[in-house]
């Protein structure tokens, strides 16, 4: 057994087991339509991973960064070039190196965080978003001098076996996301996460306790960019199956920001909840539009309404529950637990009545 499982509490192991069973056994058995994999599960896993990156730098360390999509692009194009030019590295090796390349950008563009914060820092991180995309666009080398404008991503081949069906790519994303999520949870719960949160909550006091602001902030930016880079590579290779800089524009950065905040700042759960919500809500709206109004409502109106609702939700959450949906979920679980225990049912966790 790998050591990463052994510090978890019983509750954690149960949660993990449930998630694994669901994602590895139940979903593939019962969900057969490709649409669910190509358009929902795969992008959800990729974007949740990128959102974990955003959580690390913003939710845990409190740095207002707005360049996630730029780092995703760095990772995606790094992956493309590595597979193209250094085939011996293999898929997993290329994925890790792509993440490291994105991390390097993260360190570079994270340096302003040592001097500024808040909106000032946000502006500085916007530089990374615009610069990285521009760089990829302008220097043909990154796109292998392909003038067609859309580069197809190479097939995923791991240990000689191709992973090209939606189900196969789903498993690739699932594996990578699971491993990186567990690593993130370990960091968040350990001394690393405490240092991040100390810098977020009261940096002067953190310094006075021996936390190095320089090292902690740069580390947060680097790790965050790594996660975004890997997420970007998966996003390009498993979801878009193509590489275009325009897919990683500022709108995507804002989307990830929303996923991070609505989901719950400073939680790993929040990354998954937020990503699921932002991805699924439009699907829901479209379904309502088509079934309830029988397609009478224009698609652009639907997307405008979606935008209004996301904006309203942001405002509402900031006013009433700044800790996001993850907190709402926690509150819900707590109130269910107290209801169950107050009505005299022992062993609240198990749904079986004990007399």
């Amino acid at each position, binding site marked *: 057994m790998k*050591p990463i499982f052994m*510090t978890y509490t019983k509750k954690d192991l149960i949660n993990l087991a449930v998630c694994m069973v669901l994602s590895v056994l139940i979903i593939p058995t019962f969900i057969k339509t490709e649409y669910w994999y190509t358009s929902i599960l795969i992008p959800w896993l990729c974007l949740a991973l990128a959102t974990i990156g955003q959580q690390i730098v913003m939710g845990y360390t409190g740095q207002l960064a707005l360049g996630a999509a730029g780092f995703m692009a760095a990772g995606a194009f790094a992956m493309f070039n590595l597979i193209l030019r250094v085939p011996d590295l293999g898929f997993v090796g290329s994925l890790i190196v792509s993440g490291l390349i994105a991390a390097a950008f993260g360190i570079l563009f994270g340096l302003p965080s040592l001097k500024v914060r808040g909106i000032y820092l946000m502006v500085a991180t916007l530089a990374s978003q615009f610069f990285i995309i521009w760089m990829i666009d302008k220097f043909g080398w990154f796109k292998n001098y392909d003038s067609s404008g859309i580069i197809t991503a190479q097939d995923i081949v791991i240990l000689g076996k191709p992973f090209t069906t939606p189900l196969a790519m789903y498993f690739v994303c699932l594996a990578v996301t699971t491993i990186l999520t567990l690593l993130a949870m370990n*960091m968040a719960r*350990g001394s690393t996460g405490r240092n991040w*949160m100390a810098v977020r909550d009261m940096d002067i*006091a*953190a310094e*006075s*306790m*021996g936390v190095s602001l320089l090292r902690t902030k740069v580390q947060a930016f680097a790790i965050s960019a790594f996660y975004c880079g890997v997420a970007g590579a998966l996003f390009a290779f498993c979801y878009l199956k193509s590489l275009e800089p325009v897919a990683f524009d500022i709108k995507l950065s804002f989307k990830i920001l929303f996923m991070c905040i609505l989901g719950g700042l400073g939680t790993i759960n929040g990354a998954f909840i937020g990503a699921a919500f932002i991805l699924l809500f439009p699907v829901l709206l479209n379904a309502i539009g088509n079934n309830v109004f029988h397609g009478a409502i224009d698609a652009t109106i639907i997307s405008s309404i979606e935008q209004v609702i996301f904006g309203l939700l942001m405002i509402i959450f900031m006013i009433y529950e700044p800790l996001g949906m993850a907190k709402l979920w926690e509150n819900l679980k707590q109130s269910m637990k107290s209801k169950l225990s107050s009505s005299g049912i022992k062993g609240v966790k198990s749904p079986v009545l004990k007399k």
Partner: protein
Amino acid sequence: MAYERKFKIGKPILEVNNISLAFGGVKAITDTSFNVLEHEVRAIIGPNGAGKSSMLNCINGIYKPQQGTVSFRGQVVPNITPNIMAQMGLSRTFQNLALFKRMSVLDNILVGRKLHTKTNFLEVALQLPKVKKEEKLNRERSEEIISFLEIEDIKDTPVGKLPYGLQKKVELGRALATDSSIILLDEPMAGMNVEEKRDMCRFILKVNDELGTTMVLIEHDMGVVMDISDRVVVLDYGKVIGDGTPDEIMANQKVIDAYLGVEH
């Protein structure tokens, strides 16, 4: 106090030399010097606005004085930062509380163990055995401090939800967790009732007695100052107007005038 100290008061551990600090045109501290001897309890007193908190901030590197130096164990520390002082063995609490609001009491105190955490993020991510060992040790030490301060029942509460008096205790706990040689306490008993103050005095003395930690505290309650401090330095308008044992400074006319508001 006529009893045998376990840790005899020794040489100067901290020296403040000719510090001057100004904000814009306002002079907060003017050419101030004093020292702190190892293992003693040193109080800094003075009327409001005398520059006491600013002095602590200069010592710990949060403010950069325009003039003067700070020496630690006889060596001048150039380019003081809070980090450097922490590494040298100096820790502190803050007047207006600087706790990590969203973190629990235990986690706040665990941050105090940062200097005793040598593992890097990758090792933490992979939960290697040495990470688990270190975490276990740090947790044990933190739990020791928590029970010492008698705050076991709130150890998992986010500190933002605690009443002021308990938050002050947690701040002390966090500073204690660093196992520093010297701790600066900025009004550790402000806003506390008689009982809470008695507890704090007890904790401060116990730490000084059992661990030998040098304590420097800014304090307004003269009763506390007389009771627990070995030596006192008195600041007024950013200058030292008295420096000696509690009895000496109580008899010092300048000090009496300052507190009574007599023109001087």
